[in-house]
């Protein structure tokens, strides 16, 4: 039970990078970018191929990220210069990437990484080199954390990306990027090149998605052509759940919420999979139900609250009227 729980947290933290990318496109740029399903695999495929060919895992991961950036930039170009609507630009790129990803993987649909050295095996090796690692590992494994170095590394990396994102969105370029999603006409009248900003923003978004894909491949031990299917919905689910639970007060708050949303999503899925009649194949259905729930619940709660507020107002009014009546009667007697 606890092992599954911490496993879900660990995966959630890695997928949170992808969710941060989805937040950049969907929320910051107001650009519903579906490239994600493809660029996630691109990140995985590129890093896996470099690793299989003996390159250092860190370099392989960075190159995977760069490939995602490039894919995103092309989606941005399709929209801004090709004047294709955002949804269609993303879908076109996603479809194209499916073939490209197969090419990258040398025509195979699956590249195993089981006996390769990955970022995670390097980190684990590094950690186990320390003298204190044995007792710490033993202690943590009693509460269900089997490999502490991985979860800590993933957490640090995701938090670093979070803080970089927070910082970036407050720089001069970052402000212009946010305004591009908020009021294009205004920021253009303030001399910002909105086309360039959209290309940059969608590029950065997909770089994060690809980074997440590269890590998921190294964590799971394989890259697969189908591993990106439905990724966009998982990303959206994380963003929506996070925003609903943790609020949207400030940028720093939202990015933290998105990470929290990604982790909670994983926990919910792992709990759902423990239900007897559900199996692994039902994952996507579970995801869809979670997203629908996350979208509808806040609205239902809100309208309930409204109704209760109105009832209370009504009660107050009639009470006041009754009191008034009472006073009038007292006065007349």
């Amino acid at each position, binding site marked *: 039970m606890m092992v599954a729980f911490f496993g879900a947290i660990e995966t959630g933290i890695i997928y949170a990078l992808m969710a941060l990318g989805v937040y950049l496109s969907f929320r910051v740029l107001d650009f519903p970018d579906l490239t994600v399903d493809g660029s996630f695999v691109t990140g995985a495929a590129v890093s896996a191929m470099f690793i299989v060919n003996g390159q250092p895992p860190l370099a392989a991961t960075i190159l995977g990220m760069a490939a995602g950036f490039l894919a995103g930039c092309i989606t941005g170009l399709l929209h801004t210069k090709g004047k294709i609507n955002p949804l269609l630009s993303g879908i076109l790129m996603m479809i194209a990437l499916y073939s490209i990803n197969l090419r990258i993987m040398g025509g195979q649909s699956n590249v195993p990484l089981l006996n390769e050295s990955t970022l995670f095996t390097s980190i684990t090796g590094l950690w186990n080199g320390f003298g204190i690692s044995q007792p710490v590992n033993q202690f943590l494994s009693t509460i269900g954390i089997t490999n502490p170095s991985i979860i800590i590394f993933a957490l640090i990396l995701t938090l670093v990306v979070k803080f970089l994102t927070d910082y970036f969105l407050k720089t001069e370029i970052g402000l*212009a990027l946010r*305004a591009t999603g908020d009021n294009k006409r205004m920021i253009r009248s303030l*001399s910002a090149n909105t086309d360039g900003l959209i290309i940059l923003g969608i590029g950065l978004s997909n770089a994060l998605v690809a980074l997440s894909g590269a890590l998921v491949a190294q964590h799971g031990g394989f890259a697969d052509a189908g591993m990106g299917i439905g990724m966009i919905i998982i990303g959206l689910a994380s963003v929506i759940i996070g925003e609903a639970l943790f609020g949207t007060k400030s940028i720093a708050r939202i990015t933290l919420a998105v990470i929290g949303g990604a982790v909670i999503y994983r926990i919910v899925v792992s709990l759902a999979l423990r239900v007897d009649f559900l199996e692994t194949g039902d994952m996507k259905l579970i995801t869809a139900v979670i997203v629908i729930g996350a979208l509808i619940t806040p609205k239902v709660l809100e309208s309930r609250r409204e109704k209760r507020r109105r009832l209370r107002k009504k009660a107050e009014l009639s009470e006041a009227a009754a009191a008034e009546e009472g006073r009038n009667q007292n006065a007349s007697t």
Partner: protein
Amino acid sequence: MLQLKQVSLTFNEGTMDEKKALQNVNIELKSGEFLTVIGSNGAGKSTLMNVISGSVIPDTGNVYIDGKAVTPMQEYKRSRMIGRVFQDPMAGTAPSMTIEENLAMAWARDKKRSLKPGVSKKRKTLFREHLAALNLGLEDRLSAKVGLLSGGERQALSLLMATFTEPNILMLDEHTAALDPSRAELITNITGDVVEKFQLTTLMVTHNMQQALDLGTRLIMMDKGQIILDVAGKEKQELTIEKLLNEFQRIRGEQLTNDKAVLG
């Protein structure tokens, strides 16, 4: 400073909806001149603004800023030199961002945007000073989201954003038309003050003849895409609404009706 040479623009040419929005328009504006533009609905006033800002490209003719032809230059590049306030109070600010962030974006208009924080301590002080001059108490609400401001407050903020980098040209397109009379008057007063303070070369389109007479050093009247009246200096000072209406009747041989322009 600003020159338009034989600028013409026809929308939907050759169709039923053909509209000659600008017909051979020539304007020369000297540095520091404050031009008010009046004319009935559809006269081409907004199109004139859009041709200068670059959001619309004219069919023929050229726009020059500081002697440099800017017609092929893209809108966002031109806007380094041009401050604009739109009619719609929603149009000039980013509602989900804070007052200080909006000001920071405007502050970056004539500079290269970098990876430095947009809102620094030093800039906050500067923003606070500028906001205080508006007398709306906005200087105490730097980190409030702009979406929470009233239309008048937003328009005042837009005006500050358009002017405080001292652009070569300031363009105002009916920027008080969406406000109630008292707010409109407030914004009109602030407009006069900031143009004076920064000595800006200004074009202001207005529906309100009285405003066109109160503000500015020069006035043009447009009709059917043409400039039909151009007065400046002492003559402009002595203009009245009645004189303007008579002039229109003399030139066009028809009456300028109330529904075509607001009189006062």
